[in-house]
């Protein structure tokens, strides 16, 4: 099967779709034939540009300005997507933020914001989609976690906790809904060239880069291609897994 037919006419949602990894995911899935609705919070200009790029390529997408930390917003969004495209086949929980700080200076808002968006946002979106998936006895969820959630990264106590939470959510939900032909998997990106990495000092970036066996940082497409794999029939027997996409940085659990 050609890559541009892997998700032919499938309908899906990507949270946090305008920037970084999310943007690459949206473009990859659209290129694979999917109809995508994506959420964003602030980036109006980027959202508009992305919709234009997709339209120019002869495909269709839908944007929705809204915050995944609000449950009712997620419910509304999912209903709108179903009404607009006439169904729903998969969900990619990608929306995420960082508030990196030394733990002794981390305020409770830094903790709450990151947990609310990264982890509760996953719950809100998955919970809003799951009844549809259960009823049709078909569905697929891919959550974007992080290496930070596996091994922990200093100054990211909040982020590491949220991303570890996503791994637990993935494993538990996968077991619960597998009898209904719904797969739930999770990707743990390593160091990926995005705005999130851009805030690091050059010195530190060099140090991190040298630590990657493949000798380079990943790019957002590396993650997007793995999302496509997990959403496609190519991965039909894979569920409840955490796939590390990190250039070999972590080779054990």
């Amino acid at each position, binding site marked *: 099967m050609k890559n541009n037919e892997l998700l032919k006419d499938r309908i899906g949602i990507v949270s946090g779709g305008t920037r970084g990894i999310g943007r690459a995911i949206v473009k990859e899935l659209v290129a694979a034939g999917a109809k995508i609705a994506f959420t964003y919070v602030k980036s109006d200009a980027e959202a508009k540009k992305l919709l234009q790029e997709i339209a120019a390529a002869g495909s269709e997408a839908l944007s929705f300005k809204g915050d995944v930390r609000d449950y009712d917003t997620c419910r509304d969004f999912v209903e709108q997507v179903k009404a607009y495209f006439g169904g729903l086949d998969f969900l990619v929980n990608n929306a995420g933020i960082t508030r990196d700080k030394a733990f002794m200076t981390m305020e409770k808002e830094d903790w709450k914001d990151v947990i609310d968006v990264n982890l509760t946002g996953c719950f809100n979106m998955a919970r809003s989609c799951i*009844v549809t998936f*259960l*009823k*049709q006895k078909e569905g697929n969820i891919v959550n974007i976690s992080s290496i930070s959630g596996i091994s922990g990264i200093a100054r990211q106590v909040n982020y590491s906790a949220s991303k570890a939470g996503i791994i637990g959510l993935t494993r538990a939900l996968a077991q619960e809904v597998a009898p*209904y032909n719904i797969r739930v998997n999770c990707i743990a990106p390593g160091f990926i060239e995005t705005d999130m990495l851009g805030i690091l000092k050059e010195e530190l970036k060099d140090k991190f880069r040298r630590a990657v066996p493949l000798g380079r940082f990943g790019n957002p497409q590396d993650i997007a291609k793995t999302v496509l794999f997990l959403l496609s029939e190519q991965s039909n027997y894979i569920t409840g897994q955490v796939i590390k996409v990190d250039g070999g940085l972590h080779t054990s659990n």
Partner: protein
Amino acid sequence: MAPSIKDEILEIVATVIEKEAGDISLDAHLVQEVGADSMMALEILAALEKKYHIVVPEERLKEMTTVNKIIQMVETARKRG
């Protein structure tokens, strides 16, 4: 004579719960007395939506406690069209 909506719904419930239709009393609590669970309720809902071409909001699931209440719910949904 075509089967009544009551018989049709009872048949759907019985099939999902894997019991004989004759053994399910119309006012028995499906979870507490008949042995259904939340996923069975969802399967019943999905089957009803398909059969009667209705859409029932997820929130109504918790009201589907007895066959009689399900019948009522379907009839309301059909009137709404």
